[in-house]
């Protein structure tokens, strides 16, 4: 369990990359890229976790602020990352739509305009 969370995140990054390598459809490649990115979310959030009933880093008028909470900084970074993920995916999907429109295919194996 000590490193299981880290290994899962590493696995997601590799699996996503593997998906891009063997992809036969651009939309699939884009989706795999977002799986690889999800690996970074899992890694960051696991790094910030703390055993023993540490709370979320959100305090109110009732719970006094204390440091028996999970790391807020990795959560903030992940939030930034998630918005980036939506935007990058949008741009990539827009490109995929236009490529399919111009070339009549979205299979990377059949797209061959940039050789050499």
């Amino acid at each position: 369990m000590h490193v299981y969370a880290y290994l899962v995140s590493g696995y997601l990054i590799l699996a996503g990359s593997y998906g891009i390598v063997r992809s036969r459809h651009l939309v699939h490649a884009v989706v795999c890229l977002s799986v690889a990115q999800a690996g970074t979310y899992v890694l960051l959030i696991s790094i910030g976790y703390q055993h023993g009933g540490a709370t979320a880093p959100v305090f109110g008028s009732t719970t006094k602020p204390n440091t028996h909470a999970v790391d807020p900084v990795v959560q903030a970074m992940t939030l930034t990352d998630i918005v980036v993920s939506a935007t990058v995916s949008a741009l990539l999907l827009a490109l995929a739509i236009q490529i399919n429109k111009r070339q009549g295919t979205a299979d990377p194996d059949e797209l061959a305009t940039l050789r050499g």
Partner: protein
Amino acid sequence: MSGPAELMPAMVATCVVVACVLAVAGRVLPRRVIDGLAIATMLGVTCAAVVLLRYTGEGRRYLWMGGWGPHDGVSVGIPFVADPASAGLAVLVGVLTTCALLFSWHYLDAVHGHFHALVLLFAAGTEGFAFSGDLFDLIVFFELMGGAAYALTAFHIEDETSLQGGLNFAIVNSLGAYLSLTGLALLYARVGQLGLPQLHDALAHQRADALVVTSFVLVMTGFLVKGALVPFHFWTADAEAVAPTPVCVLFSGVMVELGLYGVARVYWTVYAETIPAADIRRAFLVIGAVTAVVGAVMCLGQRHFKRLLAFSTIAHMGLFMLGFAVLTPDGLGGVAVYVLGHAGVKGVLFLLAGVLLNRYGTIDELRLFRLARDQRLVATVFFAAALALAGLPPFGTALGKSIAEDAAATAGYPWATALFVLVSAATGGAVLRFGARTFLGWGDTPAPDQLAGTRLGEAVPEEDDMPARTPATMLSAIGILLASALAVGVVPGVGRAAAHAAERLIDGKGYAGQVLAGQPPAPLLPEPAAAWTGPGIWLGLLSTLLALVVAAAGLWSGRLRWMNVADPVMRRLHRVHSGHVGDYVAWMFAGMAVLVALVGLPLV
């Protein structure tokens, strides 16, 4: 310590604000206003960067965002730090962006100011990247640069090659950024800090174990992708061959160089005291040499002019990497001068490619054969830039090349010096060959079968009704760039300033000490050896001469049967550059594996 330091966030924020205004009001504003507003903004930003650069002569300028300054060497805030290297890059960004916008004055269907807004956001990203003193923030601005750049690459949606170039670029670069983020996460898990100065202090006492090395390789991967270094470079040719002309100027002049800047900045502030210099030197010398050779060989084999220029950029990135990899202030100072000269020269060549494309509807070398013989002015500028690329003194490229060559030889790598000469000759020769065919009509007449059945180099002209004479705004952009490339070489003191910039960039300890504890900056060497030298001038002339030989060999290669021996190697190399994004990702991981082996194995 603030004052001039406040210019840094102001520059980034101004670009963002104006970009938003253009994005929202672009559809109602007349084209002239859009052009004028964007150019005025970039002029203002350039002036601010120049002011900042002058102040950095006295030491680094820094500002903690949100007022969260450090206590006892730690902080929750993000610093922006200006040293001569980052401020100089900001000036370079300003000048290149201004020229790119000048060139697109009225040119290019701008689609409601979208083009200008994206260019300004790109500028904001590059400036933030140059100034940021925080590893996560660096990656955020890296992605901002990327996001704007992907859309700009594919701006001509009618052109299928530009779409595919944009997609390959976007996937490979984004994956690179995510891998950098993974490396950052490993580092954060160990030391719980993100600022570059804090990371410096935290890592200074660590052993280079598996975590440090792996995080190094992962963080560097993103920057190496951006820096177009083999085998992370494949996207570069695809993107630069197809992006709109003004965008190519930015990509080849400053974006890929910022990748190398990221490598240098993060290495020297974070890892330099942990990972032994010998390992780093070996790894980066290998990467630099392979990049230079692959770029030069591929450059020689191109007939699509923008693609040719893109491979020349890759070859030069290899040379810059070699200059960096000797890990001395002289080497890096030479690279700094070389980068400035190269940005001007390459910018001129890309803009001339744009002029040709608009006039003749193609930039294929064989189709352009003898077509442009009446273009006296364009031809003169073209050959000046081509010779400068080959390393002809007194251009800035030659000065930078000479300083870096000297540094490599002094550090005990004469083969690197030889590579500088040969690669400059090859890339300059390829460009000269293109010019001789196009403007002079020299060389063998292309066989009909070489022209048939290929649409290579053809593209949708970027301007519908190109006037018979090239407009003054376009010419002025070209003139500014060529003059800057010359000025870098002839204005006294550029070499010295670059050497000082390199000294500051290398001094990671001083960076951390000044930003975290307000320590005074270390004194600089009074007279660095960074000026024209006799051997440097001779080597510059030699590479120019060799470039002429290369060009002649290319023009009349049909008569040189013995050159066919190299064909199988060439064919294989060409096949590797397949335009297939899956291939690119596979090579990226192979490159990471090589980097792990080069840096990690000696430590086991």
